[in-house]
């Protein structure tokens, strides 16, 4: 009955109701769409960062993070391998790596690079290494003379598949070590910087170059699917690993490894809240105004209702109910439009037209907008909660109308 009355009151002035509904719909819609885009951007930067050799969790020598030098290596990898083979959640993958800074050179050019020794069988599922071979092929197990480098690096060395490239670095005895490798293939990465920074050789070749026997720099772990994006998902795994890990090693998550990225993503979250607030305020002016008009032009009616014995609380309730009707219709349509928009772009938005710009911000080339249930909830909660809150003003105004005042 109350609802019925509110519904009819809302539609007494269809044009006015229509206009404010459009405002609410646009508000909800754009909040969702913007949120989805931001989520997509965040996921894309995270994915691209994790893919660029970070993984979800790394097992390292505690000194390695500060000083990624040969000394700070895992000197006894066998127990780590045994542990990782049984302790990780199902669907995870992991591999050892050797990592060292060095210089690559040929007759044409020389450039600083990072040498990465990898397990040719396991690495492809772990990082971008396996994603996009531009030319040639990936390393095969036992191919200790082969090297894979980024397409951009290959171009700047003016060389091609099959030619030689000399790597120079400092070995475990602090002597300069160098060796020639044959280019087997090139990879494409989302960022040109990545293509120019990393060269891949086999684990065994890297161990030999550095003179470290069977030692490795780190073990990189990837958890299955979309898990591993926040602390709650990472911590149980890290705890389980730490319990059995040799004393002299540590397990670090991407949040530890990339604190800057975490901070950046946090800023994004705060910015989004700010955005909600700004859009809401812009909408609230219209909402309050419309409700105020609706209330004041019915002064007589409210006076009459009061004369009939309606308590002020009931009047407040009635007005808020009208507000609720507006908000529910607006939110319903807004959510629908929002979800539809996200669905339309679910194939991803190609950012490659801005390749260098997105690289600058650490974005991948494809951004897929999406929202989480939490986002949906918070958008609706913001509009609904704050919407009812600001409507209290016209509601209280209506409740304050006295019968005498109304009849004049």
């Amino acid at each position: 009955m109350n609802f019925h009355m509110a519904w009819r009151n809302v539609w007494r002035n269809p044009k006015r109701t229509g206009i404010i509904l459009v405002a609410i719909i646009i508000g909800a819609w754009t909040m969702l769409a913007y949120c989805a885009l931001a989520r997509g951007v965040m996921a894309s930067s995270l994915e691209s960062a994790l893919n660029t050799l970070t993984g979800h969790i790394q097992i390292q020598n505690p000194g390695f993070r500060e000083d990624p030098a040969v000394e700070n290596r895992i000197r006894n990898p066998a127990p780590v391998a045994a542990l990782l083979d049984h302790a990780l959640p199902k669907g995870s993958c992991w591999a050892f790596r050797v990592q060292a800074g060095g210089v690559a050179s040929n007759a044409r050019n020389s450039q600083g690079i990072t040498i990465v020794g990898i397990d040719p069988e396991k690495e492809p599922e772990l990082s971008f290494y396996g994603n996009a071979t531009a030319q040639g092929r990936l390393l095969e197990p036992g191919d200790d003379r082969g090297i894979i480098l980024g397409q951009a690096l290959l171009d700047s060395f003016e060389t091609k598949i099959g030619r030689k490239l000399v790597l120079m670095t400092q070995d475990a005895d602090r002597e300069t070590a160098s060796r020639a490798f044959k280019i087997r293939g090139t990879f494409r990465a989302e960022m040109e910087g990545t293509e120019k920074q990393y060269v891949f050789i086999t684990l065994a070749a890297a161990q030999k170059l550095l003179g470290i026997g069977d030692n490795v720099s780190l073990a990189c772990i990837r958890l299955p699917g979309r898990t591993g994006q926040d602390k709650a998902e990472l911590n149980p795994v890290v705890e389980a690993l730490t319990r059995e890990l040799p004393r002299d090693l540590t397990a670090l998550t991407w949040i530890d490894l990339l604190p800057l990225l975490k901070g950046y993503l946090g800023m994004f979250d705060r910015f989004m809240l700010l955005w909600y607030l700004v859009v809401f305020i812009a909408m609230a002016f219209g909402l309050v105004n419309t409700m105020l008009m609706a209330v004041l032009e019915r002064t007589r009616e409210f006076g009459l209702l009061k004369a009939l014995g309606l308590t002020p609380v009931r009047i407040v309730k009635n007005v808020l109910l009208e507000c609720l009707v507006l908000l529910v219709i607006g939110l319903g349509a807004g959510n629908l439009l929002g979800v539809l928009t996200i669905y339309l772009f679910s194939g991803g938005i190609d950012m490659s037209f801005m390749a260098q710009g997105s690289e600058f911000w650490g974005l991948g080339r494809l951004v897929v907008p999406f929202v989480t249930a939490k986002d949906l909830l918070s958008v609706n909660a913001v509009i609904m909660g704050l919407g009812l809150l600001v409507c209290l003003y016209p509601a209280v105004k209506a409740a304050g109308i006295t019968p005498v005042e109304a009849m004049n």
Partner: protein
Amino acid sequence: MEILMAWRNVWRNPRRTILTILAIAFACLVLIFMLSVQVGTYEVMINASVKTRTGHIQVIKKGYNKDHKIRQVVSDPESIAKILDQTPHVTAHTFRANAFALLSSDLRTCAGLITGVDPERESKISNIVHTMRKGRFLKPSDTNTAVLGALLAKNLKVNVGDEVVALGSAMDGSVAATVLKVAGIFSSGMDDYDRSAIQIPLPHFQEVFYMENAVHEVVVTCDSLWHVSRVKESLAAALHPKPPAEPTGQDADQGLVCLSWDELTPGLIQSIQMDLGGGLIFYAILLVMVAFSIMNTFVMAVFERTRELGTLLAIGAGPGRLSKMLVLESAFLTLWGITLGILAGCVLTFWFQHTGIPLGGAEGMLKQYGIPGLIRPRLTLATALSGPALVFIITTLTALYPALKVRRLTPVDAMRAV
């Protein structure tokens, strides 16, 4: 009297008028503030990049900015310097030469980018000299002396007075090696740069890498960002009539080019465009939001007064006069809102321009892009007025709807309305 009438009409419903004015002011405030923050950030980013790295303009061998190959040299830089000395708006210029090398200290080896600089002239262009953390910058009398980035120093575990061995490839492909003494450590604030950069005097560089008198970059700064394109044009014109610099090896067919900072760091300008694009979408949404938020006020201004408007029509006012009256009324609202918004927006922006906006957790991340921990919005005439101008356009369009609609009103129908 018409103005008086519009003014009184606006205040017939003070609550509604105030809410509408506030909505317009709010939109202006947000736009002014956000635009100023964006502009302030871009300026810092551009200046950081220009001052530590690229300068405003560089004369280089075509393609050097892409490949950084040691053979892509400017073989007669002095002749370009002579041109630059006579080019207006040029404040300073210097030569640089770069090469990748393996740097080794007693304890560590890592790759670095050695840059040969002219100590005296470099200090007029680059702000590295002002960011020395330890020791001193290079002096003209130095030979095998180096200054290096703080993160590089940390990685190499070296300090002022220590020695660093550099090993690289010279211009002719032979091995280039030198022992450098660390004279100072700088921290430019751009992590990427501080992790790899080492600077030595240009003559020593040319000697070690067999460069003779050649350099890689002639770096130019101008008196303002706005003059860059003009300087670039006149410089390019001065370079062009001459035959390409003396033939050196097989690259003789490639001439010199003149590139501005945005061409040297395309990522920077694209990232700014991207951020600006994102911002524009944001602003568009906000404007549409505000338009619908205030539209009811304008619609009601007609709807509630249909009878009165009918009377005016009956006593002989033409439809044009009514439209004019309504436009005048909305202009009052809009102008009030915009004035208030500009005032509040400028005060807010000005305040933050002085105190800065702390970025909390994102500080470190943004430092990578050359954005310092505090963002300072920058209030300019453009940022203060372009937002409100947009608001003015959108509110006027919104108000135009009822103002045009009133033209369809007939006196009989209007006076019959409630």
